[in-house]
């Protein structure tokens, strides 16, 4: 009974302090709100409107049609017209454009022989037939941009001579489940819950306890009969609520703004989110027993936050990483949460479908709480 009232005392004290700390209180709402809008619109893996330079050495009607066809794909936008390939290289070096489209002066001849145009197949013994019609010079340092331009390599050209497009049969049939329109936001928004919770939950809890140490409150607190576990539980309850509020903001706003589906199993989603909040909070508590200042607590948070963004599958597919990096990613609660929440929100998965992540996260939570309680000493030495 005393235990519960002490936990409640810590809880209401924390709430009162939080309410008066307008800045922190504002951040609780503003961080998810702004980041959702920012990333929901900004992060897009479908690259469009890459600025390019055109070097048209043939200067014919055909070459102008070809440039228009390339622009019509919307992958690129012509921002400069230059006369020599050297000028184009210079434009790429100085980052005015990402690529240059070079049309040779014998473009018309090359086009006539090109199989892409579909004017029948000329004898393949002819060396000339195998020559491409024009050339792309690309700043290949960004692989996403490079592959977007590479996707233009096999662009059909039959329209130039008003030929009916070849009705080619694809080798494979591909059916896209869960995100058929290939909208990036559908994948980003649930993932954002994971990264924002990782940041706020770890940071708030570690800072909340370290702050008491920095301000000298801890010396007074450990002189009272309060038990470490009572202090910790009382301290984390307000942050559990904060985590749930942030999740609700991101998912509901993601539904409204980006039409991210929200018809999965809500109870599973709630339980999974609670588990992740618990795991992150317990990690924050462990940090709070290590860090001596709020700055140190902040550094430890960033230490976990960056891999949680980059390795968890939020930005890049988990499967694409080397095995060693996958092991590191497995250790992060965010990785498991990414799988869980994308499963719940997008694939209508249940807790049973992701039971391995559930078990791992529960283990992490229990272990973190035990470690924090053991490490937290009611002593100054």
């Amino acid at each position, binding site marked *: 009974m005393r235990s519960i009232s002490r936990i409640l005392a810590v809880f209401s004290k924390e709430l009162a302090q939080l309410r008066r700390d307008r800045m922190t209180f504002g951040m609780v709402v503003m961080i998810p709100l702004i980041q959702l809008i920012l990333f929901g619109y900004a992060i897009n893996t479908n690259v469009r409107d890459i600025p390019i330079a055109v070097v048209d050495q043939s200067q014919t009607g055909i070459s102008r049609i070809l440039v228009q066809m390339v622009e019509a794909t919307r992958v690129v936008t012509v921002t400069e017209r230059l006369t020599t390939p050297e000028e184009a290289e210079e434009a790429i070096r100085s980052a005015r454009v990402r690529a240059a489209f070079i049309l040779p002066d014998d473009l018309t001849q090359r086009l006539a022989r090109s199989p892409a145009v579909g004017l029948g197949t000329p004898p393949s013994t002819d060396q000339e037939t195998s020559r491409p019609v024009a050339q792309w010079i690309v700043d290949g340092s960004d692989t996403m941009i490079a592959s977007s331009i590479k996707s233009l390599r096999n662009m059909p050209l039959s329209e130039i001579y008003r030929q009916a497009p070849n009705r080619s049969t694809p080798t494979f049939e591909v059916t896209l489940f869960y995100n058929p329109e290939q909208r990036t936001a559908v994948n980003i928004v649930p993932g954002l819950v994971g990264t924002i919770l990782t940041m706020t939950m770890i940071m708030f809890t570690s800072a909340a306890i370290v702050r008491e140490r920095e301000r000298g409150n801890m010396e007074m607190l450990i*002189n*009272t009969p309060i038990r470490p576990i009572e202090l910790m539980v009382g301290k984390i309850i307000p942050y559990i609520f904060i985590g749930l509020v942030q999740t609700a903001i991101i998912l509901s706003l993601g539904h409204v703004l980006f039409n991210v589906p929200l018809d999965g199993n809500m109870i599973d989603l709630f339980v999974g989110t609670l588990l992740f909040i618990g795991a992150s909070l317990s990690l924050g508590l462990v940090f709070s027993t290590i860090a001596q200042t709020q700055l140190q607590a902040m550094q430890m948070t960033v230490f976990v936050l960056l891999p949680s963004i980059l390795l968890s599958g939020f930005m890049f597919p988990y499967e694409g990483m080397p095995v060693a990096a996958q092991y590191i990613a497995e250790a992060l609660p965010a990785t498991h949460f990414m799988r869980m929440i994308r499963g719940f929100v997008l694939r209508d998965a249940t807790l049973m479908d992701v039971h391995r992540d559930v078990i791992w996260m529960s283990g992490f939570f229990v272990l973190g709480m035990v470690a924090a309680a053991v490490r937290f000493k009611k002593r100054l030495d």
Partner: protein
Amino acid sequence: MSDIVIQAEGLVKSFKGFRAVDGLDLTIERGMIYGFLGPNGCGKTTAIRMLTGLLTPTEGSVEVLGLSIPKDAEALKYKIGYMTQAFSLYGDLTVLENLSFMGTVYGLTRAQRKERIAEVMNRYELTQLSDRFAGKMSGGQRQRLALAAAVLHGPQLLFLDEPTSAVDPESRRHFWEQLFDLVDEGTSIVVTTHFMDEAERCHKIAIMEAGQKRLDGTPGALMSAMGANVVEIEAPNLRDIRRHLLGTEGIVTAAQLGARLRVLVKDTIPDPEGFLKSNPQTASATIVEQVRPNLEDVFVTATGEGRQ
């Protein structure tokens, strides 16, 4: 109920080889104010932290209120109150919120809490301030709040670590009156200080230096057993006289107090006034008279340069 509240033997605390407290023996009786007097860094705070169970002694044994420390430190926490050196309540909570939090943490029921909070707020003149944020109050007000929080659960033993270093003399006097009220009600108090006037108010004091207890006893007994007599000299060239006297045999120390020089003469010299008058250095003195020793004299003879 034994009449000893604190019994410590051979208490040692080392921090990486540095002995902050070095072989401290203590016997503190019930119903008195016991003061630790010493300069900063002499181990007062470390000693108090060991007595409350905040620090584990490297060596030695402590028994506080019949409980062995650190083994029974948790049980002890209900029976003691502790006021830290720096203000350690929450600056962003109000007076009432702070007291209510402390009351709950100490396990008081709602009814007890209400009664005790009203009582201490009234007693320490906090009723008018109950909605003020602790961080926005003056040093004196904050100190009253800290004391109120420390005695809220009715501890038998109260530890105060330099309680008055941040308040004005008026508040300090008032504070001590409140301490004597507590003692009158049966509370025992352990206090650290580096103010002589404060130490003089204690029933018993221990003079600490470099982690060791140099002397202990009642201030009166310490003054009469000082081993030196105090003579004050008035002369035009006090700085010169002081310089000469410091090297002279039989002189413990000399310190200037405004227009007078306060000279401590070893009590092996039977007639200290005559001894100084006959000294050629003090020929210019207009007044040479023996005065009543104070605690500072005791402190100086017991520590530092005065101790050979």
